[in-house]
């Protein structure tokens, strides 16, 4: 019961942010001279208008959700991992290469691909974590810069050594996975695939870990006051590195399921152009890093995007409407922080009565 109460409480603020985001979106639509109501109707249709669109939204929500879950773990530990993009892309390219070149039956390819994708994503995240722990290099910056390196490196891999040179396509991409190594679709003819189930399971698992296990407690304490955590015997570096590894692993999994369930190959730019990583970041912030909340916020943000595609198909409003709404959302999710601040101030006031 407490969990449900906490969940609903943590959803009040995102709801307000969504309302403000939609209002801003309305301003932008008006600026382009389109009908606000009509545009939002198209958006709704594009996201949820039919079973096909609905499953497309879920398919799009899958990588977003996995990335958001990984980030939420890092955020809770007080680590600002902004490197999900690089972790996802490197995970994806590794998974693709393993699934293509490992001489094994399909099922093994899938398992090995997933394993490779998570491991590579995890280790790529571990590196900045280690750099922060050992050399005090700010993780916020290093993870960001690592994104550029990872994306460029993956791009190099598929333009030079592992490029698919069979087809006429000018795209930099690997050859296609053999069919036995594809993740199954959940419904025939629909785009949502087994990766969505992985994401849901990951959310439940993460919720359980954070809420009930000693590790979850230690993550939370480390995030709230790292000196207190260290004083209490929590190994800051170990928890931080574990958090980073898991965080990167989930981002790697996000890339992996896109490769194995949607594209069936690694295509340069196919993961970065839709901005999965940044949308994942927003989903995590919107849900205040709550794993179950992330299920909701990921689907919501995915719906904005698939909805905006519908809008673009049927009106003159550009697709980027979604980006604007999302950015405003995230800007106003900060109102939550002001509430925290108010609480902090109250806490401080409480102290002064006692101590002065």
């Amino acid at each position: 019961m407490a969990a449900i109460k906490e969940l609903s409480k943590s959803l009040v603020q995102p709801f307000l942010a969504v309302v403000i985001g939609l209002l801003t979106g309305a301003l932008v639509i008006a600026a382009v001279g389109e009908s606000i109501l009509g545009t939002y109707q198209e958006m709704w249709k594009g996201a949820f208008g039919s079973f096909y669109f609905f499953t497309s939204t879920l398919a799009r929500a899958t990588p977003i959700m996995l990335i958001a879950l990984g980030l939420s773990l890092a955020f809770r530990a007080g680590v600002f991992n902004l490197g999900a993009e690089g972790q996802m892309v490197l995970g994806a390219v590794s998974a693709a290469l393993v699934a293509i070149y490992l001489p094994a039956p399909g099922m093994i390819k899938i398992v090995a691909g997933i394993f490779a994708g998570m491991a590579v994503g995890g280790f790529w995240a571990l590196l900045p974590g280690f750099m922060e722990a050992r050399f005090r290099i700010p993780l916020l910056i290093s993870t960001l810069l690592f994104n550029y390196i990872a994306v460029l490196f993956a791009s190099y891999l598929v333009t030079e050594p592992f490029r698919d040179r069979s087809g006429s396509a000018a795209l930099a991409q690997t050859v296609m996975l053999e069919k036995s190594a594809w993740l199954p679709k959940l419904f025939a003819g629909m785009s949502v695939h087994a990766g969505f189930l992985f994401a849901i399971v990951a959310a439940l698992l993460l919720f359980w870990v954070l809420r009930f296990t000693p590790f979850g407690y230690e993550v939370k304490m480390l995030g709230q006051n790292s000196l207190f955590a260290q004083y209490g015997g929590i190994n800051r570096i170990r928890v931080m590195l574990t958090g980073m590894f898991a965080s990167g692993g989930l981002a790697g999994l996000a890339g992996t399921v896109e490769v194995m369930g949607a594209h069936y190959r690694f295509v340069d730019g196919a993961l970065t152009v839709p901005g999965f990583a940044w949308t994942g970041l927003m989903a995590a912030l919107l849900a205040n890093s709550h794993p179950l909340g992330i299920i909701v916020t990921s689907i919501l943000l995915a719906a904005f995007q698939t909805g905006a595609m519908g809008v673009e198909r049927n009106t003159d409003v550009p697709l980027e409407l979604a980006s604007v709404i999302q950015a405003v959302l995230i800007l106003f999710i900060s109102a939550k922080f002001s509430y925290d601040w108010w609480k902090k101030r109250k806490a401080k006031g409480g102290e002064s009565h006692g101590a002065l």
Partner: protein
Amino acid sequence: MTDRLEMRGMTKKYGDFTANDKVSFSLAAGEVHAIVGENGAGKTTLMRMLYGMEQPTSGEIVLNGKPVVFRGPEDAIRNGIGMVHQHFMLFGEFSVTENIVIGYEPKQAGFFKRKDAEDKVRALSEQYRIPIHPQAKVANCSIGEQQRVEILKVLYQGADIIVLDEPTAVLTPLEVRDLLQTIRNLAESGKSVILITHKLQEVMEVADRITVLRGGKVTGTVSRTETNTDDLARLMVGRELQELAERVPLDKGPLLQVENLTVREKQTLLDQVSFTVHHGEIVGIAGVSGNGQSELLQAISGLRTAQEGTVRLGGNDVTNKSVATIRDAGLAHIPEDRYLWGAAKLSSVEENALMGYQRKPAYNRRGVVLREKFRQVVKGWVEQFAIKTGSRQLQELAGNLSGGNLQKLIVARELGQETPFLIAAEPTRGVDIGAMEYIHQALIEKRNQGDGILLVSSELSEILALSDRILVMYKGRIAGELSRLEATEEKISVIMAGGSIHGSNQRAI
């Protein structure tokens, strides 16, 4: 003598809590008026209202016969009121001069005339006989000099009324003497001084009048010549102090053995420190804060690496081991700063209590923390220590607890570990007298059970009341050791200031 300042019927409420209840106070020109009271008596609230940092719920401030309202510190400063805060409001990176003139800098066309500023500061320093080095970087100044910078700053700002908030808490006995002299000088040159403190000896040395606060109310305003420390103590506390429990003589051998412990960063912070804490013994560490006490505790508890020396706890070598390992070897730790080290303000009381227990087999089953089982234990602590947690009980945020209640929670958590050895650093800092007595009793009881305690406190009275043996730290070394019988406040003070005394078991410096 006309009153320069009068505060009438000052009341300040925070919700249901009344911090000041119809407090009246007056101050004449050239007078030193002390305000004394226990922690939580409302001294600082009163001064924050005078300084414009808080608005009174009711009451009025009359300055030179005219009622005034201060919307912020700048109003107070403009009206000649200066405050020297307990925690200095200084910029360590700036020079002494810059710190004194900031906000009222001599300037020309927007450019800061540092030379003029320095001349003015020098003149001011000579006028009031307050020695400073105008060009020195404040971070490199001693605490005593930093305080002089603060005093010169309020004089530079043109203050006629100077408020000193617990000015002697951080000073060596020698520096205290200088400060009291400075206060007298200021009064003689016509300034009025409000001295907030809880140290009665100092009050008796320097104050003209004394106002005593208790529980937010004035319990008396007396002239120094008509009172003594005992009367003041009675007015402050309002009842007889509880006697501490009988201490049972015990000696069951060494528990904590520290040998040649040395911590260096840029300079040597802890220098070849050796001592032993036995079972059934409280060893007190006295000293002006910043003489290596924090580093010693951190090195013992695994929060800081020692470059030399060994720490043995209960026979195990725990030198530079992890905090968890040392805690497992039998250490519990009441940290010196409860907000910095001891709690997570945005977590619940229950989660704060769980620290250190989350991996104990008693509260774990199949990888899950048994929160319900643990909750019962915390409920026991709350009852036993009379911790007021507020409406949400164990789910209340720790940051919403008063300082004293949070401290009691931390003490309960660490005593609950039932370890043979306990570090108690400033165990009663900022808590009210009831909580203080309770914590002292608990420490004595633990000692009587045969456990060892290393007590660090900047309050000599606390050290003297609790310790079986007293070590005095000075500049990272143990400068002297005194037994319970031979220790007096005077003797400790001398060693704290780097002096030596005849007849004590003093070590080579």
